[in-house]
Structures are given as C-alpha cells and as structure tokens.
C-alpha cells in the first residue's frame, strides 16, 4: 500500500516538474500569442493584466492595412518573400544534402574525411561572423536586397547539416538492400529511388523541416542583406514596428503569430511521418 503511494507520489512529482519546465518554456510564446489579440493599452498596463479582458482582431486588421488607424506594413510582401526564400533554399539544400549524404554514406573517395570534417567545422562558424564578407561580395554582385542573395546564403547555411543528418540515415540502411535490388534487375539509380530513398525519407523530411525553420526564422543575416519589399522577410519586417521612441507591441505580436503559425503547421504535418519512419524493421544482421 505504502509502496503504491510512494510510486504515485513519484509520478506526481515527475509530472509537476515536467509541467513547470513546460510552463517556463511556453509562457513567453503564450504571452506573444495573447498579446496579439489585445490592444496595446492592455499590454503595457501596470500591474500586468494576465487574462485579457477582451479579445480583438484589430491588431491583425491594422497590419494588413484595414481599420481605423493604419499601420502601413507590407505583411503580404514579407510573407511572400519568406515563403519563396525558405522553400527554395530548403529544396535546394535537400537536393544537395541528399546527394552529398548518400555519397558520404556509400562511396569511398579521396579526402572524404577531410571534406566531411570541413563541412562540420563550417557549421561551427557563427553565421553573423560571415555577414560582413557576404555583404561586400553581394553588393559587388548586385545580390543585396534580392531574394536570390538570401537563398544562396541559406543554402550554404543548411547544406552541411542536411548532408550530415541524411548521411546518418543512409548509413542505417544496409548496403545489401541496394545490391539485392540491383541483382533483382535495377540500375543503381533505380535501386536508389525505389529502395534507399523511400527508406531514408523520414530522415530527409527531418532535415527539410530543420532547413525550412532555419531559413524561415533567420534574422541576423537577412537584416543585413535586405532593404525593401523586394526581399525583406517576416523576421526582418518585425523591426518595422519599432519607431524612434515607441514600439507597437500589439502589431509586433500579431506579426509574430503570423510567423509562428506556418512553422507550427509544417512541424505538425511532418511529425507523424518522422516518428513512423524512424522505426526500422525487416533486416537482420
């Protein structure tokens, strides 16, 4: 009986700890979401108003340019830029990362370890340290304030990680599967697409989510390399809410929600695939 009680207490303590940790992690995000739906006045109130007295969509209406007092922020253009840049750079990074990961996992070639190590070391360089050289290069090439400029930067940022992650997934797939397929009548290329690629799909999806989120959320480099609605992304657009003496917290939070939602939806969509794909079976040895 007492042992039962103790076990229940232990479980309860565990739950409580987990809950508190989650609270600490989630409260800022929750605060942003709440603030997106209430007026600036209430956000700045002292003492703070925890539970909003009224919820309103005014903040969203405002930043999209409807309603009484207009804040002319081109959210739609920023959203479009973000989507184009994040999606394109993710697709390119995945294509290169998959090819590279496969090569690292399957082939022997000269300087393989050195190349691999170099890629990983590149990850250790903080992106912001590259901002000045990239800025100078891009301004010579006319890539400042262009979607292409950011796409190239994000591809470079994401390829090492995607290659590394996907390499790990291909390593888990026994080479004999591809060999069996080749004996069964496939070319090497067919064996890859029919056998190895489907089996590594979950890993490639994980790498894709990571690359997308990195590009979608990146601020430091984007703020250096973009100027106008031609290329500004959503995180950079957030800065539009700061004026010299005031910050429009309500508008900023509304925009933050607009940034968070697509990322959440994507993660949610891929999540099931990630988990089901990670459980491997069928090969012994």
């Amino acid at each position: 009986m007492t042992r039962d009680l103790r076990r229940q207490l232990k479980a309860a303590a565990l739950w409580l700890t987990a809950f508190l940790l989650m609270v600490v992690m989630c409260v800022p995000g929750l605060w942003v979401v709440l603030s997106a739906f209430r007026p600036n006045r209430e956000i700045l109130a002292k003492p703070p108003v925890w539970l909003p007295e009224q919820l309103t969509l005014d903040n969203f209406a405002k930043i999209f340019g409807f309603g009484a007092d207009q804040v002319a922020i081109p959210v739609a253009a920023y959203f479009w830029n973000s989507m184009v840049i994040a999606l394109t750079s993710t697709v390119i990074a995945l294509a290169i990362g998959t090819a590279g990961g496969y090569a690292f996992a399957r082939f022997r070639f000269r300087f393989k370890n050195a190349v691999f190590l170099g890629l990983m070391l590149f990850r250790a360089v903080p992106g912001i340290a590259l901002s000045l050289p990239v800025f100078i290069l891009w301004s010579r090439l006319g890539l400042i304030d262009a979607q292409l400029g950011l796409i190239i930067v994000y591809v470079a940022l994401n390829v090492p990680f995607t290659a590394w992650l996907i390499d790990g997934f291909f390593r888990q797939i026994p080479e004999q599967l591809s060999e069996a397929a080749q004996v069964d009548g496939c070319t090497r290329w067919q064996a890859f697409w029919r056998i190895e690629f489907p089996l590594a799909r979950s890993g490639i999806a994980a790498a894709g989510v990571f690359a997308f989120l990195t590009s979608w959320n990146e601020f430091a480099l984007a703020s250096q390399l973009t100027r106008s609605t031609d290329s500004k992304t959503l995180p950079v657009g957030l800065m539009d809410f700061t004026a010299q003496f005031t910050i429009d917290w309500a508008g900023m939070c509304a925009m933050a929600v607009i940034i968070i939602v697509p990322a959440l939806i994507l993660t949610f969509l891929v999540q099931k695939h990630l988990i089901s794909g990670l459980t491997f079976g069928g090969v012994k040895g």
Partner: protein
Amino acid sequence: MAGITLRNLVKAYGRVRVVHGIDLDIGNHEFVVLVGPSGCGKSTTLRMIAGLEEITSGEIRIGGRLVNDLPPRKRNIAMVFQNYALYPHMTVRDNLGFGLKIAGQPKEVVAARVQEAADILGLAQLLDRTPAELSGGQRQRVAMGRAIVRHPDAFLFDEPLSNLDAKLRGQMRAEIKKLHQKVNNTVVYVTHDQVEAMTLADRIVIMRDGHIEQTGTPMEVFNRPANIFVAGFIGSPPMNQLPCSAEAGGLRLADGTVLPVPARLAGKVRPGAALILGVRPDDISPEGSGLLATGEGAMVRLTVDIAEPLGMESLLYSRLAGQEVQSKVFGPRLVSPGEVLDCRIALDRAHLFDAATGRSLEAA
C-alpha cells in the same frame, strides 16, 4: 539454366590480393558449395560472380556468355544474402514480385509467379505482411522466394543460414536441398560450416587464403583429402594428425611406437621421410566398441583425459604418443578419465601427408 565458368579469377583491393587466380567449372544444375575459414575469399568470389564486385583480372562466364563487364541486372542470377536484405517498406508479396515488376512483366504474370513461389515455400499465408512481422525462418524463406520467382540462370547464396539458431538451420538446410531438387537449377552456395557443405553439395570447393585447396564430391574430399588443411577442415570432429617418421619397419611415432605402413600407401613412403599420419576419430576405438572388426588394424594404447557421452556414442579426448587425439566409443560403454585403453586404429583408412608440404602421399 546455365553453368558458370571461372578462369584465372583475381581480386585485389589496392595492392592486396584476396583471390589469387581461381579456376572453376560449375555444371548446369550443379549445387556447388564454396567452403573455407573466415576471410578466405568466398564472399568476394561469389560477389564477383554476381557482379557486385569488380574483377581485377580473369574471366567469368555464365551459360557460356562472358559477363565480366555486365552489371548484376544483366547476368540473370539471383542472390540470397546473409541478412536476407528484404525490402523493409514492402509487403512479402511486393518483395517477391519486385524483380518481375522491374522487368516490366504484366500484372497477371507477376501475381501468378509470386503465387507459385509462395506455394513452393509455404508463404501463402504471409503475403500481406511486412518483413518486420516475420520470424527469422520466414524471412529466410521470403529471401529464397524472391530468388526463385525470376527463374534465373543461377542462384547464389552467401551464408544464408548463419543467422538462424541450430535447429532451424537444420530444417532450412533440408528445405534448400528440397528446393534444389524441385527447381533443379545451378547453385553456388557459400558457407564456412563444413556440415552444411557436406550435406548440400554435389561438389565442394575448399578455399584458403584466396586459393582453391581441393574440389570434389563430399565423399571424395572426405575420403581422399588432398592435403592436411582439407583433412583438418572437412569432418567433425576433425582428423587427428600424428607426426611420425618413415622407417624400414613402419611409421615411428614421437614416443617410439611403431605402426605398420597402410598397405595401399606402402609404395609411396620413402624411408626417413617426415610424415603426418591422419586418422579420423571414428577410426580409433576400443575393440568391440567401434566400427572396426576384431583383428583389424593396429593396436595402440591411449590414456583418456576427458570423455563426453553423446548418447549413442562417446567422444574421448586422450593422449597418444604425447599428443591429444580424439576418438569414438560406440554403444553403452562408459569410460572414465584416467582410464588406459587399448584401441585399434583402422590403418587402411588412415592418411599420410608430407610434413613439409602438407600434401597427401596418395596424390603424389
């Protein structure tokens, strides 16, 4: 169906040669087993036949056609891998039909052939499962099924049973044998287990360090091993090897015991030669408790160290002329450690090898 010919086949990784010019003719419908210790180049040879490993030099022909530079898919062979290599994301049905589908066969043909293979191997109930939902033996059968649906010229097996437990291994061994009798195709089978080799093979190829040591039917390699290596490798427990020197009166063992020279080898023994006398454990046993007729062979005296009763027989580890020898006692006779036994050696079934070269005197 087709035979396979290897001519002076060489494989080198960089500067290291692992297969040193192998010659082998495998007949149509023949079941050939490559056997040898770990690292002797069996898998490498098999993979070269399959086209999964480039050959350094030499020639491979399948059905008379030179296949040196053909990719695996153009060789019309099937292979069963040690880890089965079933496609984990496909059902058993799709695993079996994969090769036919790739070849562009119509749906009805694929379905019919899959059904045929499933019936032969007793897989009909399992067709809609994935490999993860099968037992080891069932996976093994699916791997074999995948090989037979395509009606290939030859089957290649690389240690297909080594992931199974002992009982299942025996069962599957019998099934492979049955399968061969049913579909009757050319088989090249790699194993390091000499029992598998003996039971399955039409012909055994014994390899060591990238060379072929001997080729022959199971009975030939058992009864007439070409050298000490084959003698020690084939047969379980292994053949006893007693160093001796040839004298006018016979063979003198290390402790001075002199045994007569086996009659059939009398002409081949040069006096003074350093030799090794090879005797199988079955051919040493106490009078009346073995395969030997009374009065047959020569008498020796053994001191028993360990006796292992196996039911029908007991295996004895004893000392003879300062050397450990294994021998067998048949029937209910119990032997205890320390016992001194007078045993008979069936010398007419014994072998003599040159101590320097290891070659059998019989061959010379």
